[in-house]
């Protein structure tokens, strides 16, 4: 009986390169981050012009799927796509078929039928972006999946730090608060250490996940540890964590007394960041939030240009050199 032989690899038709996605900061190398921050800078300059809209992504379709509430992230992704002349469509879980019990797989197949170029997804469950990637041909951007990752937040934070302090390498960043439940913290630990910053996590022991030091950061339970940092990054303290049965900390009052970021706990010149939305008077003192050293508004502004850079980068193939040439062509480099 004749055996069926597998053809030699080089005789087979070339395989399509895998689609590029932005699901985790772990997907990126240092040079990818540098390229993205560079593109964001170019877009920031383009926004200073009178005509803010660029023709770059004309004819492309960006679908925003938000299964969780969001103000900053959803609005900045939508505006970023529009500034690049892409067609956009937004879907929220309330009022959609998800309300009627449709599975994420079926929603992905439905959206995939429109051949979108990019799907931006926020979902309360870890792994939702991978699942959508499996069932559509679109580039996937993770806009937050459960407690896992929020990579564009970390990129906009890096951009803000770079613009304000001129560098990231060698800086010391203290991340304060509820690390356990924070996708922002996870993406930022990866992003900051990738770029050569030192990261110290500060918070109550039940809210610092066991084993997190293996990500390359230090841990302290003492709020005084923030004094040594160049940047104090304050995480949102979610009220539901104090509810009955959770008991991560005894009370918000005690949390604020022990770990709240107040003027007295900072030293002059320390920069303060917060991903929003803030609980003024809980994790951050209002005086700190409104002080000149707070970069919180800059973070929101960075969100737009960084998300423009991410959409642009995913939809422009080829090595970095080709991309910067393309940026020249459209007059933003």
């Amino acid at each position: 009986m004749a055996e069926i032989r597998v053809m030699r690899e080089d005789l087979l038709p070339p395989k399509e390169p895998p689609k590029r996605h932005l699901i985790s900061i772990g997907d990126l190398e240092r040079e990818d981050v540098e390229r993205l921050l560079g593109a964001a800078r170019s877009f920031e300059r383009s926004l200073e012009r009178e005509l803010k809209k660029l023709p770059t992504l004309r004819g492309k379709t960006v679908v925003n799927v938000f299964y969780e509430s969001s103000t900053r992230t959803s609005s900045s992704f939508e505006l970023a796509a529009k500034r690049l002349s892409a067609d956009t469509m937004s879907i929220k879980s309330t009022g959609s078929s998800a309300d009627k019990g449709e599975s994420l797989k079926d929603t992905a197949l439905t959206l995939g039928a429109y051949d979108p170029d990019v799907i931006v997804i926020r979902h309360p469950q870890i792994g939702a972006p991978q699942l959508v990637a499996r069932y559509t041909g679109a580039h996937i951007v993770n806009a937050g999946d459960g407690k896992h990752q929020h990579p564009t937040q970390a990129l906009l934070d890096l951009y803000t730090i770079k613009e304000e302090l001129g560098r990231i390498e060698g800086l010391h960043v203290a991340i304060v608060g509820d690390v356990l439940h924070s996708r922002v913290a996870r993406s930022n630990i990866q992003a900051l250490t990738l770029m050569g910053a030192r990261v110290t996590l500060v918070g109550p022991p039940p809210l610092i996940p066991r084993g997190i030091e293996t990500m390359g950061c230090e841990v302290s339970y003492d709020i005084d540890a923030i004094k040594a940092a160049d940047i104090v990054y304050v995480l949102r303290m979610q009220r539901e964590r104090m509810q009955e049965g959770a008991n991560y900390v005894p009370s918000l009052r005690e949390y604020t007394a022990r770990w709240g970021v107040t003027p007295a706990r900072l030293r002059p010149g320390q920069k303060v960041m917060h991903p929003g939305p803030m609980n003024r008077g809980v994790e951050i003192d209002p005086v700190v939030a409104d002080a000149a050293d707070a970069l919180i508004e800059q973070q929101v502004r960075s969100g737009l240009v960084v998300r423009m850079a991410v959409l642009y980068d995913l939809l422009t193939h080829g090595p970095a050199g080709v991309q910067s040439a393309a940026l020249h062509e459209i007059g933003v480099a």
Partner: protein
Amino acid sequence: MLHARQGKQDDLVVRSARVIDPGEGTDAVMDVRIDAGVIAQLGTNLESNEHRVVEADGLVLAPAFVDPHVHLRTPGREDEETIATGSAAAAAGGYCAILAMPNTEPVVDSAAVLGSLTETAQAEAEVPVGFLAAITRNQEGSELTEMAELADAGAAAFSDDGRPLVAPGLMRRALQYSAVTGRRLALHCEEPTLSKNGQMHEGAVSAELGFAGYPSVAESLMVERDLALAAYEGQPLHLLHLSARESVEALSRAQAAGVAATGEVTPHHLCLTDEAIRSLDSNFKMNPPLRAAEDRAALVEGLRDGTISAVASDHAPHARHEKEVPFEAAPFGVTGLETAFPALYTHLVEPGLLKLETLLERMSAGPARAYGLDAPAIAVGAPANLVLLDLKASRRVDEADFRSRSKNSWLLGETVKGQVRMTVAAGRVAFEA
């Protein structure tokens, strides 16, 4: 205690196989003759007596496997598995007997439900199936089932598998009362206030991925408690699907102190660690979860030295649409009946972590003894319970090849070595590749 479809007892001569029976101390190339389902003669150049001859040159013939822990999803979720499909999967995996857990819909907590299952098994099971009954009514952990009546109706043992028996007082009563049934308790050890919402092992990987952790101590604390109660009551006990190093250590200490406790471990806990969860593939989600490298090492060592005497597949079929969801939304459990031997041969025997004869013993006589069943043996006069293995053949695990109605295997796409060529269960050829 075991029930299967009645069929013709086969006449066979298996020629020139390497016969390995660790219990009999056999490891030699010889022929085995089976007359009407019973092993009649061992030796070289046996007469075929007009029996069917199976040429087994280069293959291994061993006592068929016993799986002490499967989920057949019947009654209630026949879309996921039935007694017919689950037992066919078992036959394809080399098993001559399997024990099914009672966490069905409804729960097997009455003689009526148990009776209907044994009747179905007598009509459609490809290999003998035993059924465990629940320890508590509806597995709610508050009232004991009528254990004596259930034992009389043929319950193989008692378990609330899938759920821990939370109240220590009730656990003690169950142990005391199990003495009158002559059957042992099989415990799913999990302290629910520690494992609450947990998706995976608590450690560096869960910290990085953001999953709620299910710490090792959630298991080992309950293992320690159950062993202490078993010691106090002087009753035997079987510990289901151990996953943590501390649990193996506790079991070893209890055995040294004379407690009649046995333990089992699954192929996935022996082959994988929590690093696999980085893929976010829901076919790596099970309870207890995959743990750290040091836990895996302790499980392999426990299996090697006999502290853990049984391999259990914990075959847990799930409907495709229930697993094709984000990891956090997926149910716990993976299939395993059809892949247990090749997985363990590939991941433990080939790399030199475990001897072949040890694996064969822990998949056959070990689990049989843990539940007081007759151990399959290759000896004259014994019923033919045999598995013929091709250790050199490898194959890519493909869902189209599964007999199980569900395809949620952690091995999909992986190439494994060691194939089952034939299974003889209770004297009948139940599977041939």
